[in-house]
């Protein structure tokens, strides 16, 4: 069958089971857009209002569904606008395929109109990228792109398609069999000897601790993780990226660890004798001062990416493999040896943990005058039963959301953990809402962050996406202000953003519902009203202007040296 490049793009997307593409058209992308138009309802295209929005939406779609997100942008500025979205997905290992259009092959390198070296620019913020100079390579490349994006340690893959390639015909053969790339063979199963050794170490430990990250979510491994945690009665802590893997309400869950982790989680890390890192990468926001991190512990590290192992922290037992499969192997050994029926006595360890828990490091007091941000999030969690899909931006609201929204399920938490991209939240929520039109999708954001991609309100209204936006509005770039207060003698350099739009009117101008309050007693009624509204809602909560996220481990400090804040 003879097809043009653009037709092949659509065919390959359908072959991969893609039903939704997020994008923004432009000159070099016209042939591809023409085919998307012709594809009609079989391929939904969501038009964002900025390419960054399209990329984050594809990313949010991927995080919420586990399927690869697909974005489509034009050449030049379309591609450069996509870069932040790619880097965000890359840092958090999100499976995504971004198709960028390019100027025609004969013009490449000529400084043509809307030309940039897209593969050059995106090389370091994608898992892999391709420039397709010959239409005969197009189908193979697109299939490889999906395979690379979704296998091993997932990540974004970019395919750059010159305009003339999308308009050249070639023979198209439907996909047959699995993609195989001789230079790329990710490890799936863990080494069985090492798995057995891990079980022995778990059995022998007096003070074990599970420290799990985004890898558990990415590999769909949370059921296996829960099985293991319950079977051996293990305490468990999550990284920011790992939230939702284990139900937050459960007694065995110690909360998040790291810079803004709970007292009990950070103390447990500092005192455990065995730390089992699962799909986590010992990020500096987690470890604090490396030399003081888990000083008494032997470390087991389970990760699909060999480069993550012994990168920041030397580990005693590495297991390279898909997290879900390795956990499955571990659980099988536990079951086979009936270890779950004779768990070692760890009462003393649990008692110690309960003592730390009593410190209640996440305490706050909601008075009658000023709204506390934490109270808004806690109320939101109660009203949604911890079951909403929550997207955030970056800053104080993000940390409070991680601390106070008790996630009960995986894939409900969309946040830019690695890159820390302000402006991520609203478009990511759109992506999740497109995937799950019936579910409650909430953006928790700040007055700074929301303005970084506020234009996406237009997309929400265009596609009637009932996303609920909760702005914790303190008139500051709050997290930076917090650092300035604590470490720069309260010199608030360029962090006061009290001059802001009237968010209610702004929402209304787009056709959304805008709500506002500054009164604590109105928080719950207003949340109720907003959550119940069938359309897009923006809720502007005027919260305490100067409030800090605690506990806090100062950058480079040891985890056990947390600042606990005014109340403690």
């Amino acid at each position, binding site marked *: 069958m003879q097809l043009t490049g653009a037709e092949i793009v659509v065919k390959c997307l359908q072959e991969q089971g893609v039903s939704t593409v997020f994008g923004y058209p432009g000159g070099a992308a016209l042939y591809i857009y023409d085919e998307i138009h012709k594809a009609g309802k079989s391929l939904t295209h969501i038009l964002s209002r900025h390419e960054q929005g399209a990329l984050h939406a594809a990313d949010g779609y991927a995080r919420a569904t586990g399927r690869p997100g697909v974005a489509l942008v034009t050449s030049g500025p379309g591609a450069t606008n996509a870069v932040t979205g790619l880097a965000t997905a890359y840092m958090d290992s999100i499976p995504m395929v971004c198709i960028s259009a390019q100027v025609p092959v004969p013009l490449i390198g000529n400084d043509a109109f809307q030309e940039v070296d897209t593969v*050059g620019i995106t090389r*370091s913020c994608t898992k892999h990228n391709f*420039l397709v100079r010959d239409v005969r390579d197009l189908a193979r490349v697109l299939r490889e792109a999906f395979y690379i994006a979704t296998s091993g340690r997932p990540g974004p893959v970019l395919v750059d398609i010159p305009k003339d390639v999308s308009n050249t015909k070639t023979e198209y053969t439907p996909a047959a069999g699995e993609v195989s790339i001789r*230079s*790329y063979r990710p490890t799936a199963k863990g080494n069985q000897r090492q798995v057995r050794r891990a079980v022995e170490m778990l059995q022998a430990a007096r003070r074990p601790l599970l420290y799990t990250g985004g890898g558990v979510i990415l590999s769909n491994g949370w059921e296996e993780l829960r099985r293991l945690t319950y079977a051996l009665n293990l305490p468990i802590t999550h990284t920011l990226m790992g939230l939702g893997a284990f139900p937050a309400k459960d007694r065995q869950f110690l909360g998040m660890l790291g810079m803004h982790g709970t007292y009990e989680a950070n103390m447990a890390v500092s005192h455990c004798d065995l730390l089992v890192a699962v799909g986590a990468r010992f990020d500096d926001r987690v470890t604090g001062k490396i030399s003081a991190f888990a000083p008494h512990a032997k470390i087991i590290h389970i990760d699909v990416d060999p480069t993550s192992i*012994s990168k920041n922290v030397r580990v005693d037992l590495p297991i390279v493999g898909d997290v879900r499969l390795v956990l499955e192997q571990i659980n099988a050994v536990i079951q086979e040896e009936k270890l779950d029926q004779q768990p070692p006595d760890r009462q003393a360890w649990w008692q110690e943990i309960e003592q730390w828990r009593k410190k209640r490091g996440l305490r706050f007091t909601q008075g009658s005058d000023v709204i506390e941000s934490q109270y808004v999030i806690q109320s939101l969690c109660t009203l949604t039963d911890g079951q909403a899909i929550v997207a955030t931006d970056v800053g104080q609201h993000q940390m409070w959301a991680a601390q106070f929204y008790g996630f009960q399920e995986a894939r409900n938490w969309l946040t830019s953990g690695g890159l820390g991209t302000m402006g991520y939240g609203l478009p990511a929520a759109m992506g999740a809402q497109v995937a799950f039109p019936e579910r409650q999708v909430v953006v928790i954001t700040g007055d700074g962050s929301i303005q970084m991609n506020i234009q996406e309100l237009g997309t929400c209204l265009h596609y009637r996406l009932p996303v609920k936006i909760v702005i914790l509005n303190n008139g500051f770039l709050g997290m930076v202000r917090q650092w300035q207060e604590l470490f720069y003698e309260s010199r608030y350099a360029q962090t006061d953003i009290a001059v802001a739009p009237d968010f209610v009117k702004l929402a209304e101008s787009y056709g959304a519902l805008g709500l506002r309050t500054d009164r604590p007693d109105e928080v719950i009624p207003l949340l109720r009203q907003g959550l119940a509204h069938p359309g897009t809602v923006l809720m502007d909560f005027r919260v305490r202007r100067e409030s800090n996220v605690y506990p806090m481990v100062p950058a480079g400090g040891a985890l056990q040296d947390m600042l606990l804040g005014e109340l403690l």
Partner: protein
Amino acid sequence: MKHIISVLVENESGVLSRVSGLFSARGFNIESLTVAPVGDKQTSRITLVTEGDGPIIEQILKQLNKLIPVIQVVNLSEGPHVGRELMLIKVSTDRPQQDKSVRNEIMHIVSIFRAQVVDATPTSLIIEVTGDNDKLHACLAMLEPFGVAEVVRTGQVALARGNRK
């Protein structure tokens, strides 16, 4: 300690920049790097010399392996290997009171190092010398007094000895 790392890659455009970009992005050193297609021209062999302690070299090897078009990575320094580099040295012979003895002396050095003269003009000689790092340095040091105008080096290439790959 210096490490010679041999990387077999798919011979496709952009692969060299992926490798060199990895080194610059992660702050690893490259002392020398050579690349050329091998065998059926489907693949290329990159030989690079880098320096770092154990954990850094471990990261370099893993990160190289992680690149999609990289087929195989071997740290040749972990075992017996043969390393060679080629150097061209242009020695200026354009001096007043030039006498034959200078050229003779140069020829003498050339023969000691089993090098060869590959070009001669009234004002210069080009000498080609092949060997390991030490030999090249030694040869260059001997020729320096005669006035070295230019030097180019290929960077090291190496193979493991015996059956090791």
